[in-house]
């Protein structure tokens, strides 16, 4: 068995992940083919989570114990307790079927032509100035993106709130206020900058959650990405494909963690690895 592992490892170093049992095409090729879809979805979800999460957290911290604070923290509490696949199904039902305003599966309508350059549909349609495709793929992104982004958003909102509350109470903020700086400047320039470290940590950690969540979200919304590929591979007992995609996602996660660590040192020169 260890010889088998050695052989597998040897071809891995050469960039060969073997061939899929189901489709007989090289696993690495299939992964690269599907990766842009996952990248686009996670990117959209993460932007949604970061923007909404930090804003909600900051406003909650400034107006602690206000109506807004209570509502957003209740929403956040439900957000961290919700299974992503259930949220996805509910969004699908409400916006896709009941209100019938958003598409619920796939990345783009089949009827719309789009030249494939990078595999990122939004970028492709921008580059080719295909506005119809841009609008359509954006519409397709909304439901899965929001479903995937909600849990990280809830966690980011909670951490931003508590981190901001801690910073706001410190002396230098009082000094800034006493200096007569406008409140906006105090909050965004001084307080947020100091509250950023735990927020960045959490955002880095959430990326793993996001990749995991993508597996489920892609399954629900028929999104042709890496997560769906993994699930299909598991169901088909396609072992080379399972190994390849798990390895790929894990490496991605490690790279993101590394970036987070580097960002720390950048944000706070006091933190350095020895």
């Amino acid at each position: 068995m260890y010889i088998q592992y050695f052989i597998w490892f040897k071809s891995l170093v050469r960039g060969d992940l073997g061939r899929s049992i189901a489709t007989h095409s090289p696993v690495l090729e299939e992964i690269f083919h599907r990766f842009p879809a996952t990248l686009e979805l996670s990117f959209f979800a993460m932007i949604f989570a970061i923007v909404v999460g930090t804003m909600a957290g900051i406003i909650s911290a400034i107006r602690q114990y206000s109506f807004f604070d209570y509502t957003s923290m209740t929403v956040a509490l439900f957000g961290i307790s919700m299974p992503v696949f259930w949220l996805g199904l509910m969004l699908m039902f409400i916006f896709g079927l009941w209100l019938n305003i958003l598409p619920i599966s796939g990345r783009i309508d089949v009827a719309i032509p789009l030249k494939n350059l990078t595999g990122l549909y939004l970028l492709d349609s921008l580059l080719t100035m295909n506005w119809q495709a841009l609008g359509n793929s954006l519409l397709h992104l909304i439901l899965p993106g929001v479903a995937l982004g909600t849990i990280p958003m809830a966690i980011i909102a909670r951490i931003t709130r508590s981190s901001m509350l801690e910073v706001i109470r410190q002396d230098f903020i009082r000094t800034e206020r006493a200096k007569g700086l406008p409140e906006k400047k105090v909050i965004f320039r001084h307080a947020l900058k100091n509250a950023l470290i735990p927020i960045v940590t959490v955002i880095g950690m959430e990326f793993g959650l996001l990749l995991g969540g993508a597996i489920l979200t892609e399954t629900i919304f028929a999104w042709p990405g890496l997560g769906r590929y993994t699930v299909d591979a598991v169901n088909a007992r396609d072992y080379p494909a399972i190994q390849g995609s798990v390895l790929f996602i894990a490496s991605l996660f490690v790279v993101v963690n590394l970036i987070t660590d580097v960002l720390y040192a950048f944000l706070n020169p006091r933190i350095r690895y020895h």
Partner: protein
Amino acid sequence: MFRKNKSAMAGLVIILVMVVVTLCAPYLAPNNPIQRNLSIRLKPGSWAGKEYAKYPLGTDYLGRCLLSRIIWGTRTSLSVGFIAVLISTVLGLLLGVLGGYFGKWIDTFLMRIVDVLFAFPSILLSIAIMAALGPGLEKAMIAIGIVYAPQMARVVRSAILVIKEMDYIEAERALGASHFRIIWYHILPNVLAPVIVYSTLSVAGAILDAAALGFLGLGAIPPTPEWGAMLSNSRQFLMSGAWWAATFPGLAIVLAVLGLNLLGDGLRDALDPRLRM
């Protein structure tokens, strides 16, 4: 202090109710959870009128009583959650105590293993383990137990690193106490607080992950009632308007996880304020 914390008490009440439901499932469920009746498949519940009152939450795609399945599913989900966390606690304590107490190369070695496990997003690792073990509830417990162990190991280890340096441990050692005695009587009782807090929060995560595995068809083997699998079976009928079959099992998951999160947060504030996020 704990009793004054309203949200923690709410969490405790939710969990206690769920435990009661788990224990009394045979008496509480109005119908047999696995009996099929295709002539009444996907019928709405009591909100649709009196004639539907026999199945208060409606029926699923095989005509089984949804409420009864959710009640029995509480038993499945809670036991998977608790047993998985028990496994991870035992593994985590073992790794954490060995690494934290003995230090040196043992610590380095064990922490590298932990680092490797940390390189995988949790659900991905459990899917990978399940792919190797095959489907089944017991295997889901093992997979999730392994996935949650590294975090526990780190929590235990960091607590021990602090305790180990304290004077009373030094005194104990000077008295000639064995390693086992020091660990069992003097160190373990003191790492209990973070372990309890972290386990409670882990059960919430474990229930979510177990539901996700069930949703992907890797957890319970049918016809065992399991919330995640119930959701996944009802998925395709959602679009034909049978919203109840997917909504209620999901609500049950939310309620269980919410209760555990509230309880865990409350326990953390009461037992170990330093862990507050």
